[in-house]
Each structure stands twice: as structure tokens, then as C-alpha cells.
């Protein structure tokens, strides 16, 4: 039987990968990671402080001429309704970030709980949950999204719901696999023999070991969610007008590209920067927290 010291060393193995300062140091060494942090911070700050940054009311029509070119008054020009594009782009950044954090946060929470239940619970529950996960995953994502939006109508809630439902099984499966592996490990058996209850084992020993890879997975999903949200808004199935949103701005730009190219540029660049920023950051975090995974990929 392994010594208690060895067991505790093993139990703590996945709980921390270094201090915050270590992470920052490693991020600084990774150029793309640094760029990712800068881009993400830039977008997050501009979204949080958007009301202080905008120069005009983003929903007010005819504050300027239609489809005007950029000028000192209208930094990115105006759209077909004479609205200030700069203000719409800045305010528009709040929607994808909100969608990403709420939808991924909720799917992460639900996926975590269900994954732990599947991995640590009785066999019949595991089978039932796996069936549910696989059923959800078997729907083609975009068809599922269109069906839900057709049913509930286009809105921010519908978009969040679609993304949360389709992301959840992935996280749940990852948690379930990790939990199942940990369940039969020696240190869990030792904890049990010392009288620890299931709740304590899950909270103190299993959860810290599965949360790390899960957070990396979530951070890698953020750019995909931003792209999906923008895509649904581009198709007119996202937020309702006149709420500013990058996908909707891009759609307006596409419609009026013959008259002005600025709307397409204004709508396209933030989507590109946001997805690149989160991708670089996610990859850097993956490299820091799980170099083995990088080698495997």
C-alpha cells in the first residue's frame, strides 16, 4: 500500500500548475500568447467601458448622412440608417462576449455536474447520461440552432440556449472520462477507506483534477462561440434590431458593399481580432497547463 505522503502527492498532482506569476511569466515567453492577452484585454476593456468610449448613441438613426465615409465625427463612418458605426462596433462587442461567457459558463457548470454524476454514479445513470449526451451531439449543430431559433424566435436568449445545449455534452464527456479514471485510483480508494464521503471526494479530490483541462477546453471554444454568434446574427437569427452586434453590422455591410466598404471592414475586423485573440490565448494556456496535450495534438 502506498504511503499517505505519496497518496497526497498524487492527489495534489493536478490541482495546481504553478502560481499566477508563473503563468504570467510563461505567457510572456509565448509571443502569440502575449498577443492573445493584449487582444482579449483590449476587446474586454472596450466592451466593459463601451458607454464611456462611444461618441454617439449607437441606436439613434440619422445622426449623420447615410453610408458616410470615416471622418473625425464618425470614426468608422455611418451605416445605411445614418448611425455611427464606431459606436455600434464598440457596443457590439458586448454581445459576443456576453454570449460566450453566459453560454459557455452555463454549459460548463451543467456539464461538470452531469459529467461527475456519470463518472462517479451507478452504471445505469452513466449509460442514461451518455445516451443523452450522444443524442444531443447527433444533431448537426447548425440545423439544431436553426430549429431552436425557428421555435423560440430570434433573440439573445435563443442564441445562448443553443450554444449552451450543444456545448454541454462535450464538457460532460470530458469530465466523465476523467472522473471514471480517477475513481479507481489508489488515493481515492485510500480516502474512502479513511471514511471520506462521496461529496468530499468529488469536491476535494476529483473536481480540482478535472477542472484544469476543462477550462482549457472552454477557452479554446470561446472563438468558436464568437463566430457562431456572429454567424447567426449575420443570418438575422441573432439579436434583434436595433441592438448593435458585429454579425449584424457585417450583414449590413454585405448588403451595401457596392455603396460603401466601411461597414464590412468595421464589422469584420473585430470578429477577426476577437477570434484570433481568444485562440492565441487558449492555445497558450493549453501549452502552459498541459504541455502533454500539445505534444499529443
Amino acid at each position: 500500500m502506498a504511503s499517505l505522503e505519496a497518496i497526497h502527492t498524487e492527489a495534489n498532482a493536478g490541482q495546481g500548475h504553478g502560481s499566477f506569476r508563473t503563468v504570467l511569466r510563461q505567457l510572456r515567453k509565448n509571443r502569440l500568447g502575449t498577443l492573445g492577452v493584449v487582444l482579449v484585454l483590449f476587446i474586454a476593456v472596450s466592451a466593459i467601458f463601451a458607454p464611456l468610449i462611444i461618441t454617439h448613441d449607437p441606436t439613434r438613426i440619422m445622426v449623420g448622412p447615410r453610408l458616410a465615409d470615416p471622418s473625425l465625427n464618425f470614426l468608422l463612418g455611418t451605416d445605411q440608417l445614418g448611425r455611427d458605426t464606431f459606436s455600434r462596433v464598440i457596443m457590439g462587442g458586448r454581445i459576443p462576449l456576453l454570449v460566450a461567457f453566459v453560454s459557455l459558463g452555463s454549459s460548463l457548470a451543467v456539464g461538470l455536474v452531469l459529467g461527475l454524476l456519470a463518472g462517479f454514479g451507478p452504471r445505469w445513470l452513466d449509460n442514461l447520461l451518455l445516451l443523452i449526451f450522444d443524442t444531443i451531439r447527433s444533431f448537426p449543430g447548425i440545423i439544431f440552432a436553426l430549429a431552436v431559433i425557428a421555435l423560440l424566435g430570434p433573440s439573445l436568449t435563443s442564441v445562448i440556449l443553443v450554444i449552451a445545449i450543444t456545448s454541454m455534452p462535450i464538457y460532460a464527456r470530458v469530465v466523465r472520462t476523467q472522473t471514471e479514471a480517477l475513481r479507481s485510483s489508489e488515493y481515492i480508494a485510500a480516502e474512502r477507506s479513511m471514511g471520506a464521503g462521496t461529496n468530499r471526494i468529488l469536491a476535494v479530490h476529483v473536481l480540482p483534477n478535472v477542472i484544469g483541462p476543462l477550462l482549457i477546453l472552454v477557452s479554446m471554444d470561446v472563438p468558436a462561440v464568437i463566430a457562431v454568434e456572429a454567424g447567426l446574427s449575420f443570418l438575422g437569427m441573432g439579436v434583434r434590431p436595433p441592438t448593435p452586434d458585429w454579425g449584424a453590422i457585417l450583414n449590413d455591410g454585405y448588403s451595401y458593399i457596392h455603396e460603401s466598404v466601411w461597414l464590412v471592414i468595421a464589422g469584420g475586423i473585430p470578429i477577426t481580432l476577437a477570434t484570433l485573440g481568444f485562440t492565441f490565448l487558449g492555445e497558450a494556456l493549453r501549452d502552459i497547463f498541459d504541455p502533454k496535450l500539445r505534444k499529443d495534438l
Partner: protein
Amino acid sequence: MNDVVGSVSRRAFLKTGATLGGGIMAAGMPLSQAIWAAEGKVLTARANQDVDKLDPAFYLGAVNSEVMSCIYSKLIRYKPGSEWSWELEAAEKIEQVDPTHIRFQLKKGIKFSNDYGELTVRDVKFSFERVIRLDSPSNFDWGPLDHVEVEDDYTGVIVFKTPFAPAWTLALPYGAGHIVSEDAVMKAAKDGGPFGMTPTAFSGPYVFADWKPNQHVLLTRNPEWSGPKPGFDEIRILPIGDIKTAERAYQAGDIDFTHISVDSLANFKSNSPADTTIEEKPSIGIVYVGMNIDHPKLKDINVRKAIQWAINVPQILDAAYAGQMEVATGSLARGLIGYRDKALVPPEGDLAKAKESLEKAGVSDFTVTVDCLNQSEFLTIAQVLQAQLSQIGVTAEINAQDSGSFYTIGMESEGDRWKDMQLIVQSFSNVPEPYYFSATYTRDQIGKWNWERFSSERFDELNAKAITIDDPNERAKLYREMQDLMEDSGAYRYLTNGASPFMYRTTRMQPATRPDGVPHYVAFKPV
């Protein structure tokens, strides 16, 4: 077979693919055209929506009628050009014998495809009587039709119960005037009922060769057609709902004929694509904001009046059409019988009166929904409307919908969505016959075409009377009063009758359109 597959290495496959792709690119041919490539003269045009019913008794909308006019014959048709008139098609002769009788004589030798024999008066009788016999949403096209008398194979008399002036401007030359084969329809559908998108016999210059929903309609020459040979071997019609998308498709070379948006017109004129001609025609359609009178939020006429007065039409037209459109005075466009000089509510509206009406209704700060098509033109209108309504404390939520969903909102036969409909940005195409518009707002059309559920006994009386009168001036008075009644109900705010600019590739075709720019594909000539 295995030898052949085995002898093609991966490198050879890639080389061949690259050569083929390069060849296509070098030829300057858009990929879509390369995929389509076929022998002969091909006309590729855009339609603003997909076809969904090629049954003359059940057709809905202009696009179905445009396709039906290629595959079926009518006694007469609208004459292409700049003046509204008609010309003979399947009829050799046709005349109004008296106010309730029209005698016609068919051309000999018009054959139905698939061995369904020659087109005779028996088929005409079957086709026209079928429209009124079946419970069709289009049966008002034939108004008081009683029956068709058969004198011989080629001569017949159309008999109306009461005089029917729209026979010459709507029933005969438009959708419900197409002639189908009695034998074919009786064989295809039980009791000669609706056959939807599966026509089995054609009597026009083209046959309906292929249809991929939301992708294309393919018409090819009818080998049994004995009339004048049409210009093109094939007609491909691509449904592209959003007009801005259609403009991009034209620029990419995917289509050779399309309508363009009015706000793009100036740009296309100053910077038109190569080998392109742009023509402008006046539209006779109507774009308006409608309100569901039966919805609890809009039941009070003062609420509807408040919304009417809050809408500033020129502002909407500035935003949606770059100010290039004329303000509509009613459902009937300039030049049509019944055109009004001005609307009851001035185009600019009046916010003070709007607020006063809301006070009378005793409501404030409420929310309404605005349904519109998910297309740039209508979304722009809805957003300006939203901003205008906010000025009187009304919050508008926009529900942008695809055409399939949008065009059934107000129909009771399609479920209960009509109960939730509140405001709607609506657009209708028209024909040069005021009855075509008025017949859709009668009480018996509530829940069919009358989505605002406008209900007026006086309106119905005028509608019935107007079709019996020949004198255009007398008819005009009645139609003006009908529009007054509609507007006075508070359920309508007319925006514009529109315009109909289109562009086409001069290296491919010489188009033929009705005076309102609606294409008449059969008369298109290749270049």
C-alpha cells in the same frame, strides 16, 4: 474498372483537377456558370421568392404566375412594353358580346405535352370553372364567373353572373387565366383538386424540367409547342430573396437579369457592371405598415390612429430607399384606376396628434411587435418605424422572418400565428386592375389575404359594385372611397408604391417586361 482507378495516381488526380479548375478560371467563367454549363442559349434570371404552386387555381404571387406563363397558355396576356394593354395568346379571336358574355375562338394545333392531346374549349371550361369550384384563395380572380359554354372544340363563351370589368385586366391575362389539361389534372389529382408543384402536361413554349426548392427552377423548350419559337433553349430562375444579394449575384456573373434596389440605382448608373443596361420602370405594387385590428393591443382605434400619426413616411423612404421613392397615397399607384391624390394622414404624420390619440386610448408605454421579411429593405423600414414609435412611448420589437414563415403569418389555415401578429411591414405586387387589391380586403378574405382583419360592410358593397361598372371615372370614385375606408380604420399606413429598376447583360439578351418591369420570359430574345 479497378485498373482504371488504380492507374490514376493521387498526383495525376490533383494535376487534372488543377488543370480543369485553371481552365475554368482562365475562361473567366464564374464557378456557378461552369457547373451549370450546358449547350444552347440559356437565360438565367433572379426571382424574389421561390415558386410554390404551379396550379393556376391555387397560384399565389407574381413569381408563380411568371413561371406559369412559360409553361401554360392563356387566352390573352399582358403585352410587353410601356403601356398597359393585352394581346392574343391561345385565342385566335376574343370579344365582349355583352356585359356578362365573352366569346372566344382558340387557335388550332396547340398541344398539351405528354400525349394529352390538343388544347380545346373543354380544357378552358375545366380550367376556369375549376378556379371557382375549388375553395382557392385565388378564386376572387374570376369574380362572378358562372360557367363556360362549349360551342365546339375551338369556340366557347365565358358567362358571368353579373358584369365583371376585371375579366380583361386580371382574370384572363394573369395567373388564374392559365389553361390546364382536363385529362392530365383529373388523372394527377383526385376530383381535379390541387396539384401543387407537380404539373403533368404543359401547353406553353416551355416545360417545367426541374425544381430544387430555394435553389433553382429549370424550364426547357416544350418539343410539342407549335407556336412561335421562344428565344432561349433554357430558362433558369434562381430564387434570391434579398435584392442586395441579387445585386451581388449579378456582379459575380451568376445571373444575367435582376431587379435592383432603388438605393443602389445611382451607384449602378455611375459605375455599372460591364455590358450591362439599367432600366427603370414604375412599380404598381404597395409597401405599407399594417395592423391587426383583432389583436387586444390594437383593438382600440385610437391606438391604431396614434401609430398612423407617429409614422413619418418620408423619413422611412429616405432611410430605406435613399429618398428615391415617391410617397404612396394609397394602395393604388399613380396611373391605376382609383389613384388618390393624397392620403388622409399627411406623409410626415404628427407626433402631437399621435400622443393625443394614445391619451384618448388611455394607454402609454406599451410594446408591440413588428413582423417583416428578413431582407435589408424591410429591416431598414422596421428599424426606422421602431425609432419613430419610440417617440410616442411605444416600444417595437422586430421579428424578421424568412419568406416561407412570413407569407403565412396572417393565414388562419396555417395555424394560430395570426392571433399574435400585431404590426407588419407588408408588400404586395399588383396588376393593373384595382379589383385585384380591393378583393383581398373584403370580410370573406379575413384570415386569408386580409391579415389586418379589416372589416367594413360599406367596403364590401363598393367592391361588389365597382366590378360591374365599365366607366373608369365612376369606378375610380368607388376605389378612392374604399382606400379612405381602409385608412380611416387606422389599420394601414401606406409607404410607397415603389419603383422597379432592373439590369441585364446586353451580351446575353434583350428583355421584355410589363410596364411595371415584371419580366415576360417567353418574349426575351437572346443576343
